[in-house]
């Protein structure tokens, strides 16, 4: 029962990646794409934790942590570049 609900949750998170990816492709300006990228990285951090559960390996939690740090730094760098400070 609980495993089935977990699988449904993972599928819904994958659909979220698909829907945010449409905005990432369409987005008229660079800032729109960066907003979509920001959301995509947060959703993928959750998906990596789902993968850790699915494969049963603890190392993927550390992967998710590093991924969250790198996506934060990346979005800050793109924001500074758009503002003209970089």
């Amino acid at each position, binding site marked *: 029962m609980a495993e089935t609900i977990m699988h449904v949750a993972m599928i819904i998170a994958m659909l979220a990646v698909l*829907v945010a990816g449409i905005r990432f492709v369409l987005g008229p300006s660079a800032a729109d794409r960066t907003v979509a990228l920001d959301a995509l990285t947060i959703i993928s*951090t959750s998906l990596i934790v789902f993968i850790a559960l699915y494969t049963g390996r603890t190392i993927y939690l550390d992967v998710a942590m590093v991924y969250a740090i790198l996506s934060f730094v990346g979005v800050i760098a793109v924001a500074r570049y758009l503002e003209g400070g970089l």
Partner: protein
Amino acid sequence: METVKLAGAIVALIGSIFLFLGALGILRMPDLYNRMQAGTKATTLGSILTMLGIGLFHLPWFWQAFILVAFLVTTNPLSSHALARAAHFKGIPLTPKSIEDKLSEDQTEKEDTMPEAEIL
């Protein structure tokens, strides 16, 4: 034990529904700032619930998931704030439906009062 697992799965399901709604908001909202609001608030809540749900589902991972949640809660508003500030100063327009823009009003007031401040 089985009840805790079920509760964790339900919390993770609610979290992933929030993730999906945030992504839908990014697709459907009219301008960048509304998209950013949907994409930041909803996905932050969704990732908090998802990770706590997985921590409840598999209890030995609870504290690692909790650290991940604490990090996301700290950094996610920061990055979206920097992005919104950059977009506003770059001059990306608001949707015509928006009522007021306090930041640009604040800037024009500052520019008006700047010469007087220099005289004083």
